[in-house]
């Protein structure tokens, strides 16, 4: 049976399944590799079609010798998710090429199962899961066809069988998934070979960078406030702080975590919230300005109050935090920090330096100077636009004196440069601003289009103070959001979408589904299991209790499963009378007189009466009742209920 030559039909089925499973990897695997696998499958299928067997071993070795070095050149390792999947795919292709016996088909099905799992380690959407379960369903049906002796069962039958097996397996899988203890930390270090590029803000900012983000509807993170959300003008989500300027680009001078942040005196109310971050492959976590507490173990506040974790964010996480929107610094600025935050590139932006000196002379007070610069933005013909002209090396000069058209990055950059030139420590802060409330789920959505840049200036006696120059030129942006702020001729892609109410509603509902999927399924963890146990009224839930509940639930499901599977062997009769009669026969059998297969009710009663005179009356009556219920007209005097009660009360003693 194992050595059966495989037919074209079976090969076609299994190749199709392998192809579908690899389709889930089409974005991560190199195309030439998929080509090799497809070529292997096609060659083998063509050979099988013309009735020929697998190609000689030499060709296999040649393909392997070609593919393996290519793989190694591409990945430099076979360890890691993508490289491992690539290796597995090539193996599957080669296996397909050399498929001779049923055993080879078995091995390919195993590879299909594992490749499907690997896809789930990379992606996390509901549709991917549904697709892969579908693929495994198909694979299972194919396996049934491939392993049965004689003529293969039809596709319909095989699929129905596979579907039934999946349905029967589902409850058990669910119990395991809910209650199987999760690891707090991985067993071994996961090689981080994620090919997903970093997204969202970066730790450098040139004027115009954020403009690209403004067109993206991708969700950066979601936020749920425990009570009321702060007003729009205070919803600044703090990202990387940029304090080094070369005349064109702002960068982060301090990389890495280090230095305790200077103490702050909170003023005003505290806001408690949970940030649900999407993975962006950077280390920072966006918190409401200014964060004071968070529950992420491997994260710390940098000395400029950005929450940074040790590892790049490669999976979605939830961080609960507390922030104050109004704070005051209680310590003076350290001299080194002051020197850094006043530093300017030499020989660049000369006109800006000149302007700063003039304004400084007119406004000796720091706050007056800030107001004067903001007034300048407001009164002079500055425009807020998504399509600003490109700027060269002296970007601030060109922007302030020539083009006067820019996005938030231009204004933040120019404002900070002006402040530094005037002797006020200043820095650019990037992050997000605003957010869209999803009324269906009561949470806020922050999209890439809400990325923003603003500035902070050091005012003696108050500390770092947030100044958003964009508010001076386009106050609507800060009050209402981007779509209302940009000029009408800007190509904001989804303008009509934002203004069509049913579309907005549908989009928000869809986002709610995505959010529920993320929160309930993807982020299911030890904490969720503890809550589940609490919900089940388990006192003082811990890992041990979890295992006990798992064992109990498993016993229940297994009992159900066994019953479910074996029920089909003898389906319970829908006829109540017949079922009750069967119970009567079982009782008599237990008492030592089993009904013979050919015996009718009356004959049986007669035999029982002869063997056990003590039971004669009852059994004769009950059997006659049964006969009349089954075979007589419905006007029979005895009712079904009476018959049932009679059988229930009947307790023959064994002799």
């Amino acid at each position: 049976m194992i050595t059966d030559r495989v037919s074209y039909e079976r090969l076609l089925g299994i190749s199709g399944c392998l192809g579908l499973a690899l389709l889930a990897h089409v974005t991560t695997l190199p195309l030439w590799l998929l080509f090799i696998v497809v070529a292997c499958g096609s060659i083998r299928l063509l050979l099988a079609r013309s009735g020929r067997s697998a190609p000689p071993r030499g060709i296999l070795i040649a393909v392997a010798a070609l593919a393996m070095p290519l793989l190694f050149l591409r990945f430099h390792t076979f360890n890691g998710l993508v490289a491992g999947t690539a290796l597995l795919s090539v193996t599957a292709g080669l296996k397909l090429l050399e498929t001779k016996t049923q055993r080879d088909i078995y091995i390919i099905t195993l590879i299909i199962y594992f490749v499907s799992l690997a896809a789930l380690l990379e992606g996390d959407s509901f549709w991917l899961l549904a697709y892969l379960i579908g693929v495994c369903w198909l694979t299972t049906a194919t396996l049934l066809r491939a392993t049965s002796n004689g003529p293969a069962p039809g596709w319909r039958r095989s699929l129905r069988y596979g579907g039934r097996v999946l349905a029967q397996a589902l409850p058990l899988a669910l119990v395991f998934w809910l209650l199987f203890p999760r690891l707090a930390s991985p067993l071994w270090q996961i090689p981080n070979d994620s090919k997903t590029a970093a997204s969202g803000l970066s730790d450098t900012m040139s004027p115009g960078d954020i403009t690209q983000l403004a067109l993206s509807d991708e969700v950066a993170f979601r936020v749920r406030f425990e009570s009321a959300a702060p007003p729009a003008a205070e919803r600044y989500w703090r990202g990387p702080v940029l304090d080094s300027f070369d005349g064109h680009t702002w960068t982060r001078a301090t990389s890495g975590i280090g230095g305790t942040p200077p103490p702050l005196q909170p003023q005003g109310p505290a806001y408690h919230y949970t940030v649900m971050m999407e993975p962006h492959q950077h280390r920072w976590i966006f918190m409401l300005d200014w964060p004071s507490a968070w529950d992420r173990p491997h994260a710390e506040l940098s000395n400029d109050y950005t929450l940074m974790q040790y590892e790049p964010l490669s999976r979605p996480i939830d961080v609960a935090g507390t922030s104050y929107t109004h704070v005051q610094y209680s310590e003076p600025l350290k001299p080194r920090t002051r020197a850094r935050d006043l530093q300017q590139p030499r020989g660049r932006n000369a006109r800006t330096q000149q302007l700063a000196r003039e304004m400084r002379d007119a406004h000796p007070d720091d706050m007056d100077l800030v107001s004067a610069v903001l007034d300048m933005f407001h009164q002079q013909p500055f425009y807020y636009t998504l399509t600003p002209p490109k700027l060269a090396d002296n970007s601030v000069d060109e922007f302030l004196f020539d083009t006067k058209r820019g996005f938030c990055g231009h204004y933040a950059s120019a404002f900070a440069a002006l402040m530094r030139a005037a002797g006020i420590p200043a820095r650019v802060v990037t992050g997000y601003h605003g957010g869209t409330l999803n009324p269906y789920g009561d949470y806020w959505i922050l999209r890439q289009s809400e990325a923003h840049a603003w500035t902070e200036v050091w005012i003696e006696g108050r500390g770092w103070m947030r100044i958003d120059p964009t508010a001076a030129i386009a106050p609507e942006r800060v009050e209402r959001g981007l779509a209302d702020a940009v000029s009408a001729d800007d190509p904001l892609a989804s303008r009509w979408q934002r203004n069509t109410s049913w579309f907005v509603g549908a989009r928000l509902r869809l986002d709610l589904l995505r959010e529920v999927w993320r929160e309930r399924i993807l982020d299911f963890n030890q904490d969720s299991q503890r809550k589940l146990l609490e919900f089940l009224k388990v006192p003082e839930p811990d890992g041990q209790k979890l295992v006990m509940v798992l064992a109990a639930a498993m016993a229940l499901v297994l009992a159900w499963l066994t019953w479910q599977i074996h029920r089909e062997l003898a389906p319970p009769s829908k006829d109540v009378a017949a079922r009750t009669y069967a119970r009567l026969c079982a009782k008599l059998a237990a008492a030592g007189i089993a009904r013979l297969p050919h015996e009718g009710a009356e004959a049986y009663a007669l035999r029982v009466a002869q063997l056990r005179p003590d039971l004669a009356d009852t059994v004769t009556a009950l059997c006659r009742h049964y006969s009349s219920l089954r075979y007589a007209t419905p006007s029979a005097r005895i009712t079904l209920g009476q018959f049932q009660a009679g059988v229930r009360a009947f307790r023959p003693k064994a002799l």
Partner: protein
Amino acid sequence: MRRHGRDSLPISIHRRRIYLMPTRFGVMLGAILAAMLMAGLNYNSNLALGFAFLMSSVAFVIMHHCNRNLQRLSVDVTTEVDAFAGREAIFEFALRNGSNVDRCDIEARCLTGSGMGSVPARESGTIEVIAPVVRRGVTRVRQFELRTRYPFGWFFSWTYVQGLITIYVAPAPAGTKTLPSAGAKGTGTHSETRGEEDFSGLRAYEPGVPLKHMAWKVLARGGEAAVRSYSSLAAQPEWLEWSSLDGMALEARLSQLCLWVLESDAAQRPYGLRIPGREIAPSGGAAHRFACLRALASFGSDHTAEPER
């Protein structure tokens, strides 16, 4: 292995007597499932973990299905089998499936042979097991086995049935001596030529009948397979004698007698068999032939053949 004593056939297979083991492929699958679980746990991916749990549960369900494939299957087997030494014994397993599920790819094993078959829901079927037998004599098979790898071949489950199959292995028909009567011709007048007038009726078909004796017309009309039988009224009963073969080795003698029995039977002549300790009165027909063959098979063993029916 549990000893049940003798089972009364037909037997409905109870789940307690079904054993189950993973196949080599099942062990491989287990390893893959374990790897899938580890990957899901280590990457802390709930989707991967869910998928791994689903596949493990599928394997678990399949295990039950494999076990169920034999459960409550009613099995019967022919208790007496006739064969010739050096050829094959054919065991017929009758399976009845009273349940609503199809029983697929059931393998029956007896002696060294095995046969495969399926029984759809609420139907019956037979599986033929063909096993070679080498030595003449009476062999008793006290146990036979039913096994299945359905579905998927991840697991195989099997059960032993303690039955009693008696195999009468007649000696291989061989010899150079002609029938005693063939030498002394003249008594049988009609034995060589068979005209229409010899036709005496139909009897049930049995394997081994010359094709020219088949009642093809009856079969063509849709009737049972039947064989035309010819009366050989004029033929004298013939004694096949052990003593007439003096000087030959024991097994050679038995082989010669066996050949004579078959030749006489094919020639439609009444014959009797006389061997030490056993005498079978002259007669004809299948039952008689079997009685003679069984007598030859059991010669020398302490077993006395069951009385002829």
